[in-house]
């Protein structure tokens, strides 16, 4: 079993707490009407992005989804730049041109949130191809959903990664739904890990509300990838707290389910109980992080609100590198 140092655990908790607070704040801010467009919140799934990204450096790449805020934060993208991007402001990580569904920071190894379901698995394969060709020992991770796992691009990416023996990890976050359609209905075999295994790679299903379970499986897969052992897959199960998008009435879910998720499936509570129970971290240490994160989010929102929208002259820039 992997053991984590105190500083690693504090780091993991900080990332998870930042994601949770970020998302809950956006949930609140969104009601003011000042956040343009669609936002899809990651709350409830923090342990997955964190359990994976805790093993990565900024030289390793991740590909993300429309529900990408958590992946960005876990990959240590600048939180203030993210907030500005979501508000569509200057100084945003994508200069306000991308928005919530396209946050990217290549300098942090973040290949972009992606508004096309199934858009990123082939891209992560490409990042892994770079790593393999250049013999960097870096790796790539593709985050996809249960819904995205049904997309042909995902199948193709998985098979090709096996064929080319690439250092890539496919993380399929099974949060029970793709929009309003249940994974139990849309995934024919009801076994995403099994399906990935069918392509010829090691694949496991883990409890996505348990940081330690995710981190254990991811650590092994990433180690294997770095050592030339080829791709792996992890199906991590954790239900999302909020709707598919902000404003989703969620009538496809029962009230009991929503209540149960928060009571039994809250990765923050589960993490806190475990580390304090084992005595590896103290309540005071965790509370201190909570306070620091709260302050960071407060500042991020204030700065995003105060920033200007990009000037119209930006409309036609950056279509090409050279003109």
């Amino acid at each position, binding site marked *: 079993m992997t053991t984590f140092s105190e500083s690693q655990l504090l780091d993991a908790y900080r990332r998870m707490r930042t994601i949770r607070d970020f998302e809950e704040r956006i949930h609140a801010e969104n009601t003011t009407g000042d956040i343009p467009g669609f936002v899809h919140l990651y709350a409830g799934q923090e342990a997955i992005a964190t359990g994976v990204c805790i093993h990565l450096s900024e030289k390793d790449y991740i590909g993300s989804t429309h529900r990408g805020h958590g992946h960005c934060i876990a990959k240590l993208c600048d939180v203030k730049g993210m907030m500005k991007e979501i508000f*569509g402001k200057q100084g945003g990580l994508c200069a306000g041109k991308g928005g919530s*569904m396209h946050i990217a920071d290549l300098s942090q190894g973040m290949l972009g949130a992606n508004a096309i379901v199934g858009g990123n698995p082939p891209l992560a394969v490409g990042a892994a191809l770079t790593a393999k060709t250049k013999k960097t020992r870096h790796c790539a991770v593709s985050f996809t959903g249960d819904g995205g796992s*049904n997309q042909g691009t995902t199948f193709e990416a998985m098979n090709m990664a096996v064929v080319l023996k690439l250092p890539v990890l496919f993380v399929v976050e099974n949060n029970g739904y793709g929009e309003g359609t249940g*994974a139990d209905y*849309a995934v024919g075999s009801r076994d995403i890990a099994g399906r990935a295994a069918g392509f010829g790679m090691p694949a496991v299903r883990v409890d996505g509300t348990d940081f330690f379970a995710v981190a254990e499986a991811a650590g092994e897969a990433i180690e294997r990838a770095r050592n030339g052992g080829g791709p792996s897959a992890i199906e991590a199960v954790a239900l999302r707290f909020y709707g598919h998008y902000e404003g989703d009435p969620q009538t*496809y*879910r029962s009230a009991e389910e929503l209540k149960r998720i928060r009571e039994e499936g809250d990765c923050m509570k589960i993490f806190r109980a475990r580390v304090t129970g084992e005595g590896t971290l103290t309540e005071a240490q965790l509370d201190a992080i909570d306070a620091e994160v709260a302050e960071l989010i407060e500042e991020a929102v204030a700065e995003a609100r105060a920033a200007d929208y990009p000037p119209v002259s930006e409309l*036609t820039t950056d279509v090409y590198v050279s003109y």
Partner: protein
Amino acid sequence: MAKKTIREAINEALRQEMARDPDVIIIGEDVSGGAGGSGEEDAYGGVMGVTKGLIGEFGRERVIDTPISESAIMGAAAGAATTGLRPVAELMFVDFVGVCFDQIMNQAAKFRYMFGGKARTPMVLRTMIGAGFRAAAQHSQSLYHLFTAVPGLKCVIPSNAYDAKGLMIQAIRDDDPVIFFEHKALYDIADDVPDEAYTIPFGEANFTRDGDDVTIVAFSRMVHIANEVADKLGREGVSVEVLDPRTSSPLDTDSILESVEKTGRLVIVDESAARCGLAGDIAGMVAQEGFEFLRAPIRQVTVPHTPVPFAPTLEDAYIPSPAKVETAVRQLLEARPRRMSA
């Protein structure tokens, strides 16, 4: 006759055709919603609610929620259409065509010709276009020009509820693959829409404003912008004709040429693309077929040659605005008539 929104008009067209013809089915992601969930069925009825209520009436056998697998959805619709059904498939946002264009472009569109006239592929592909929702680069495009470029596909781009209903019924009854483009900013626009089923033939433009000085050709949401400009300039005594072709394939070239013959001036307003889009296509046609009618250069008011930006300031500047259309019209009126050779 009641006022109905475009959303309601399309829903009514689907309901009436499904009741009339048991071969009509609906297939797509969350066209009902709620399958395999812990809550209610028909939770979405399509992300814009256009297919809401149909599952209650026609059941899961005919209102089919799918996995997120657009190639399989489009291909299944094409395959079912050639073998006896009349599927209405949904591609939630036209931007998603990137993952499934083969089944539309190389399969559905080509069967008839490639098989020597033997196949019929009576499918409808409903899809959503349009900027203005801050939905950013991968959820805001108006890619009807891509489909219009493909022989074998018919393309319907309605601008109002009356047309949407009649054109949808026509599309379902048509024996060719029809792509039906719904603008996300127009769903709540209401019009008088007859309760009974009716059809509107493809390839017949609708004149939404009559005028003598300048012709504006526009599709979908841009028709409303053209009408706004026509009304404003009309108060100043400038007479603007607005022509909504309603379908880009087939295209009512006769009506466009007739109008340009009368006015001698043409502005085309198009949300599809600055390059190789519908505006360029129509401008080329008029330059070739109606050159002698023109008293001024043709003006194209299009989106810029950029992806759709997210920031509100940028997206607002991206979309052809009434101000830009008005400027184009005024420029044509100020342009000196071309000197004709004797």
